[in-house]
């Protein structure tokens, strides 16, 4: 019963989401490209499953399962710690909206090895497809630019993905991509929810046993 209601809410969300056309199941892998190029931090829910599927729940990705609002700042701490590696934060519109101040902090620090991708479906998919602020008109790319992040893009159709994939790999400052996608289900991937085990495996893979 609840599943039927959720599906109905998602269909209503899809019908209402003009301009949100990309399929995240294809768009995220195409934008990220060779995922091994990055150390990755994701938000919870959808973006965690996007990256879990893409990397096979790989040790070079740290996926949140709670602590909503932490993704961008974890990415900053990691990027400052590892200037020799590129760091990708892939997070959702709801998760990013919870920590908009982080965009200001990141803009001030401006590490050149950090890329933030916001997978914006205009909705809180995990909680029943309620509209998010972006679905009601808030433009996160303009907020990122207003915060002072100089390299920003919105990608809303497939024609921007190839250039976007290069964009998140280059530049001499932090970059931000708003990836608009349709409000459809993220991949059904069972990722590891043990935050401590995931920390250990990330550090073991990156730093060796310590």
């Amino acid at each position, binding site marked *: 019963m609840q599943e039927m209601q959720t599906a109905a809410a998602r269909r209503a969300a899809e019908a209402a989401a003009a301009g949100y056309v990309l399929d995240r199941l294809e768009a995220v892998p195409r934008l990220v490209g060779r995922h091994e190029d990055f150390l990755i931090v994701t938000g919870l829910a959808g973006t965690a499953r996007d990256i879990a599927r893409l990397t096979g729940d790989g040790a070079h990705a740290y996926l949140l399962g709670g602590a909503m609002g932490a993704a961008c700042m974890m990415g900053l701490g990691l990027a400052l710690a590892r200037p020799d590696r590129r760091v990708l934060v892939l997070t959702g519109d709801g998760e990013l909206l919870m920590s908009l101040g982080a965009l200001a902090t990141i803009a001030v620090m401006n590490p050149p090895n950090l890329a933030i991708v916001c997978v914006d479906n205009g909705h809180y998919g995990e909680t029943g497809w309620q509209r998010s602020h972006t679905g009601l008109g808030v433009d996160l790319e303009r907020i990122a630019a207003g915060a002072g992040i100089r390299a920003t893009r919105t990608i809303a159709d497939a024609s921007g993905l190839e250039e976007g994939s290069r964009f998140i790999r280059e530049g001499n400052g932090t970059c931000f991509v708003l990836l608009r996608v349709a409000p459809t289900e993220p991949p059904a991937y069972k990722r590891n929810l043990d935050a*401590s085990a995931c920390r250990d495996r990330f550090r073991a893979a*990156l730093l060796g046993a310590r």
Partner: protein
Amino acid sequence: MDTAAAAPGWQEELYAVLRQNGVTQFAYVPDAGHRVLIDRSLADPEVHSIPLTSEEEGVALLAGADLGGARGVLLMQSSGVGNCVNLLSLVKGGRFPFLTLVSMRGDFGEGNPWQFPMGQAVQPVLEAMGVICLRVERREDVIPTANAALTMVFKSGQAVAVLLGQKLIGAKPF
């Protein structure tokens, strides 16, 4: 004149101890109680001095630093502890090492009643989220406590808050 302005020596020493222990990320919301540490981090080309818009950003930042093998410290006032609570889920669930220095308000001799609700809640709130609190009230205890905290955090992987009380840093009369 408050105690900190009269005797900045322990703050200089505290910065040196943090640096000797490999701390390279100093995150803070600007605060008078941490002025010396903040200024030293800004002037030090070998560390990242990271101004935050809100303290919870620092909790996530330090977890990210740990993933990359770096050590950091979060400098905040007692009121900032309240902003950190849910993100401490990351520290507790992920068993991330976590070090914060908290300059207390709403405590010994406080003259601003707005500071009391959070000031008095600091220790129970931190302890409820699994953060060990070490309180410092005397100048001679600062460095030994900092060394103890550094060992607990970076050798034993614990989450530790050093609470710098108003007997030490001086109570504000406003």
